[in-house]
């Protein structure tokens, strides 16, 4: 008995499992639409005037793929439009059909690197370290673990980057000489007794104009810089050079803040199990019954293009087919060519439509609308009030 593979008989019935992936088989609206779409596609391809060498499962396969393609395009658009707001969110919740509220999460995360470098936040920890000074030694090696103490890591082992060195002269205001009290630093001692030592003497502010205080502080700072070896330092590579030459009366330690380079270079700063890229944004397959009429029409047209392509491949598998005493060539190539053009057109159409709905496009349209509206309003004659 010769093999006889049945072809499209003119009608179809759907059962769960008739599609390859079974993504929508339990959606009653999908199953009824699958039957109708199969019938429609077969008719559009020429049935009943010509045989259609496809079976109902072929049409159902095209229909399922079409729904999935539609969902993939919509989801891709959603991911692209929302990715900055989705970075770091949980991967556990299905976002399909959900309205995603924009937020600054992703944007701030992008800016955190800058914050870390500027010392104004960021995602790299600033640690504290100290350097033990030796009298009359001006140059220090920061990789020497015997003199450098680090909050995290070990000097000379872990690469660090110094962010700030606390080697500064006492504020000029703290060395203020009150001309009215006339006892020099004695007034400072008095203010210290009232816990006002960090502030300018109250009496000075009471009795002297502000510019006099500022000029006096500048004089103190200029004096330090020009006449004395002011507090400063040079940090080149691992060597720290301090000014003035340390002595026991100045200080015994210099403190600094630093970061571990390994922490800055670590790309995995976020929590695990969160949205990290395009591939794990939790958009699932669309629910067919929730798709509107516009989408369903696109799906039908795409299913037809797929069915046409499939029929083209079937009819074109052999370049020539034998008939009694002759050979014929079928229209496989034409079907494939037409189907591919239709598919590309449909994808482009859908992408263009989605692109016009992006946040950026909507804002641009709103701006254009406002501009046009303003232009219209400008043409309205203004009333002139005389009174």
């Amino acid at each position, binding site marked *: 008995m*010769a*093999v*006889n*593979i049945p*072809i499209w008989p003119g009608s179809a019935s759907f059962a769960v499992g008739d599609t390859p992936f079974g993504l929508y088989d339990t959606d009653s609206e999908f199953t009824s639409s699958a039957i109708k779409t199969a019938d429609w596609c077969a008719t559009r391809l020429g049935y009943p005037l*010509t*045989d259609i*060498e496809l079976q109902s499962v072929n049409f159902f396969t095209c229909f399922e793929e079409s729904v999935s393609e539609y969902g993939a395009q919509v989801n891709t658009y959603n991911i692209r439009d929302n990715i900055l707001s989705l970075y770091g969110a949980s991967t556990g919740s299905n976002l399909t059909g959900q309205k995603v509220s924009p937020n600054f999460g992703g944007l701030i995360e992008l800016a955190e690197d800058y914050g870390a470098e500027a010392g104004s936040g960021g995602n790299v920890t600033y640690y504290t370290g100290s350097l033990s000074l030796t009298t009359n030694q001006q140059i220090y090696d920061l990789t020497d673990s015997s003199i450098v103490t680090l909050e995290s890591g070990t000097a000379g082992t872990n690469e660090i980057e110094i962010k700030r060195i606390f080697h500064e002269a006492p504020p000029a205001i703290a060395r203020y000489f009150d001309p009215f009290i006339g006892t020099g630093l004695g007034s400072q001692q008095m203010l210290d007794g009232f816990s006002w030592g960090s502030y300018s003497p109250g009496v000075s502010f009471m009795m002297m104009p502000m510019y006099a205080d500022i000029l006096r502080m500048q004089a103190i700072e200029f004096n330090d810089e020009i006449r004395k070896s002011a507090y400063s330092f040079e940090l080149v590579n691992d060597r720290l050079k301090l000014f003035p030459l340390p002595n026991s009366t100045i200080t015994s330690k210099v403190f600094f803040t630093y970061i571990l380079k390994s922490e800055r270079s670590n790309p995995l700063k976020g929590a695990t199990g969160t949205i990290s890229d395009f591939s794990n944004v939790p958009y699932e397959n669309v629910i067919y019954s929730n798709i509107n009429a516009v989408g369903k029409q696109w799906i039908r047209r795409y299913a037809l293009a797929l069915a046409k392509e499939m029929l083209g491949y*079937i009819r074109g*598998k*052999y370049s020539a*087919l*034998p*008939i*009694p*005493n*002759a050979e*014929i060539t*079928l229209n496989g190539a034409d079907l494939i060519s037409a189907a591919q053009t239709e598919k590309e057109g449909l994808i482009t159409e859908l992408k263009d439509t989605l692109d016009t709905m992006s946040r950026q496009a909507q804002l641009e349209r709103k701006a254009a609308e406002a501009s046009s509206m303003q232009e219209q309003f400008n043409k309205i004659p203004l009333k002139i009030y005389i009174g």
Partner: protein
Amino acid sequence: MALFGSGRDASLIRHMNKELVVDILDNEIEFYKLELDSTRENLYGESDKKSYYHPIKIPCIVQKDEKTMISDDFGLDSTRTGIFAFNKDYLRDRTIIIEEGDILLWDNEFYEIDKTAGSQYWRGTNPSTDLGRISQERGEFGFEVSIVVEAHVTRRNKLNLVEVRTGGNPNQEYQLPKGL
């Protein structure tokens, strides 16, 4: 193990052939099968009064050649040949066997079959005689496409199928065969 030309593919071609020959072209001839039991023959196995079974309609692809005029000692005569290609599946399904001596009626001409050939195989394999299939080493491969018949136009008065020496009914365009 052949890779191309399986029974699944042959099924597609079978559908195509059926659609083309039966549904699309639908070019039918009448086939008169020689009834040997009712045909008397002479000493030499010849018969001038042959009997035929009732004709049946069979769709086929016809290649009708041009008429050729012959002039010899007996006078002027004409002849014509034609090639009739039948769908093998169609014949097999209806148990029709076409042989030399059978008569075909097409385009108001009777053709006597001179030669039958059934060697048009798709992928070069006849599934009925394929050794691999017979020995069940593999499934169906290949496809027997057609029976191609070569025939020549024969004189209808020799066939005893239609009245040729009497006037017919002018209102009847088609004369039913006789001598069936």
